[in-house]
């Protein structure tokens, strides 16, 4: 039965409809051979004829695709020969929306992209705006350390979510409940600080929206006391289990050169043994003042990516402990009248403050002309924000380099030659957030 599919050329097409070059790309030869060698081969000889394979569709609404990711797989028996991710089901034009919102409002937009690590999205947007304003060197110390605290706690909550979904995808269903339980502890802290569990819009250009609430230190300590024990339980439940290891070891292997060529960052790149972390190699905030280890793998498989994330939670806890010791007193936002609204108390007594407050929230602040690209380390990889400004209060162009969008390109290369049952493990190990992929 043939059917004209919805997405036309975006879909995986039968081999007979492809040119040799297209086919070679889809089986990943570009990464393995030079163009000339690939051309000589014409077609990959080991691949079977079309009558021995079939193309199946997985998704868009499949529980293991973490949202609405659709994969088309070409199978021979149970072996995956080709795979093509089809995305865009969650596309809501967030970059276009970003051009309509002022720099003041932009945070509400970017925070909804990677909804599992919203604070990192806000942070990169704020840092890009600050760089354009030229105030990136004047952010108060307390604001920097607070941002770091929230960013690291967010990394923990994001990785805990990964633990839950990864477990669920591979059949350790009880793990789902445990992961969500621990993540909820962190989200509860976020709720206390920002008022919301997710999509906080708390990190703003110039600093943060508010100071930490009284008793925040005890709340963080409670999380830090609770987690190590729970992580050890994860180790018992998953890391050491033969079934778990069988499902993950040697699955979805990628080499360092492939990861670099495809632009894969964070767990994908690090699982191959490449030590690259923006927190260490291109430090932002105050990461150069805290001690932490960069977790790297050696085999580039799904197990390494799992282990990297698990141990990264521990490293983040180590950073958070140092932040607790060193959190300075002071202002949580820059006292620059241009970007900071006046304190609430001033509005009651001063007409100018009221006007200023009104202007900053209706018109926003003007950002000088220029363009800038700022990148930070999100739990999923390098998240970058490219802003071009024309001197008005709204970004002329706001582009977010979404790590999941780029990482998803690695899927066909990780899946080729593997079993269809492992496809789920591979998707899970990339940990894509589809809100960020489609934006």
């Amino acid at each position: 039965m043939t059917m004209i599919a919805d997405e036309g050329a975006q879909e995986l097409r039968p081999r007979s409809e492809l040119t040799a070059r297209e086919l070679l790309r889809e089986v990943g030869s570009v990464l393995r051979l030079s163009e000339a060698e690939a051309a000589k081969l014409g077609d990959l000889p080991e691949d079977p004829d079309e009558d021995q394979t079939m193309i199946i569709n997985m998704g868009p609404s499949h529980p293991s695709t973490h949202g609405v990711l659709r994969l088309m797989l070409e199978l021979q028996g149970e072996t995956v020969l080709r795979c093509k991710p089809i995305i865009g089901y969650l596309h809501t034009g967030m970059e276009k929306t970003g051009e309509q919102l002022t720099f003041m409002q932009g945070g509400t937009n970017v925070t909804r992209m990677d909804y599992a690590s919203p604070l990192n999205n806000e942070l990169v947007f704020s840092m890009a705006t600050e760089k354009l304003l030229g105030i990136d060197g004047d952010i108060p110390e307390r604001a920097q350390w607070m941002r770091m605290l929230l960013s690291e706690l967010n990394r923990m909550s994001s990785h805990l979510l990964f633990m839950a979904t990864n477990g669920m995808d591979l059949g350790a269903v009880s793990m789902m409940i445990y992961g969500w339980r621990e993540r909820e502890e962190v989200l509860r802290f976020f709720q206390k600080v920002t008022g919301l569990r997710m999509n906080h819009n708390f990190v703003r250009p110039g600093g943060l929206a508010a100071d930490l609430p009284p008793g925040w230190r005890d709340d963080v300590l409670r999380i830090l006391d609770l987690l190590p024990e729970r992580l050890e339980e994860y180790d018992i439940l998953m890391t050491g289990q033969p079934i778990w290891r069988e499902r993950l070891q040697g699955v979805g292997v990628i080499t360092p050169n492939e990861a670099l060529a495809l632009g894969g960052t964070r767990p994908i790149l690090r699982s191959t043994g490449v030590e690259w972390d923006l927190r260490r190699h291109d430090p932002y905030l105050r990461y150069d003042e805290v001690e932490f280890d960069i977790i790297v793998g050696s085999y580039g498989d799904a197990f390494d990516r799992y282990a990297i994330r698990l141990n990264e939670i521990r490293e983040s806890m180590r950073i958070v402990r140092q932040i607790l010791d060193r959190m300075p007193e002071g202002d949580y936002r820059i006292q620059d009248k241009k970007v900071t609204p006046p304190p609430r108390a001033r509005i009651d007594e001063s007409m100018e403050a009221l006007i200023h407050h009104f202007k900053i929230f209706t018109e926003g602040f003007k950002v000088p002309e220029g363009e800038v690209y700022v990148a930070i380390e999100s739990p999923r990889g390098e998240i970058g924000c490219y802003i071009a400004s024309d001197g008005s209060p709204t970004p002329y162009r706001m582009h977010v380099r979404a790590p999941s969008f780029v990482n998803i390109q690695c899927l066909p290369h990780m899946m080729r030659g593997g079993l269809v049952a492992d496809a789920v493990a591979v998707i899970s190990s990339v940990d894509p957030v589809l809100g960020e992929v489609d934006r």
Partner: protein
Amino acid sequence: MTDTPEAQSEDATEEAEASISEPEMLGCPMTESRGQIVLHVARDRYVEVAKQLADEGYAMCVDLTAVDYLKHMDRELPTSVIGERFEIVVNLLDITHSRRIRLRTQVPEADATIATLFDLYPGTEAMEREVFDMFGISFEGHPDPSRILMPEDWNGYPLRKDFQVGTIPVQFKGAAS
């Protein structure tokens, strides 16, 4: 006669000043934007320059995007660069030396095409498709030039500045329609 050498030296200093104000790298004008290095690459040298940078150690293409400067044509550019409507922006990363460089290439509206970087950086595949999808700039030699985020039968390119944002009409109660 006597003032010729002076005039010459003036010319020389002017030239020197011009070369100081417009530094070059790999034969392309180089500027600095908020401390970040930006190379303004001509369209016909785009792949060549990227190749040279890749050989220099910029092993990863972290980002490729475009900007539609339709409503901001008077932007700041080096004098030797003529601003066109579209601009392709490529961010390259060298992880061994921990350095970044940005390439900006002007693409005219009348001929909105540019060579693909796919053969050099396979990771640009999805990004170039996204730029095609959003701006309608086609990449010559791209192996899969289809839309990626929008539906296949979509008309227009959403991130172009002349593509209007959709609005929902608001009906106020009691207002004369």
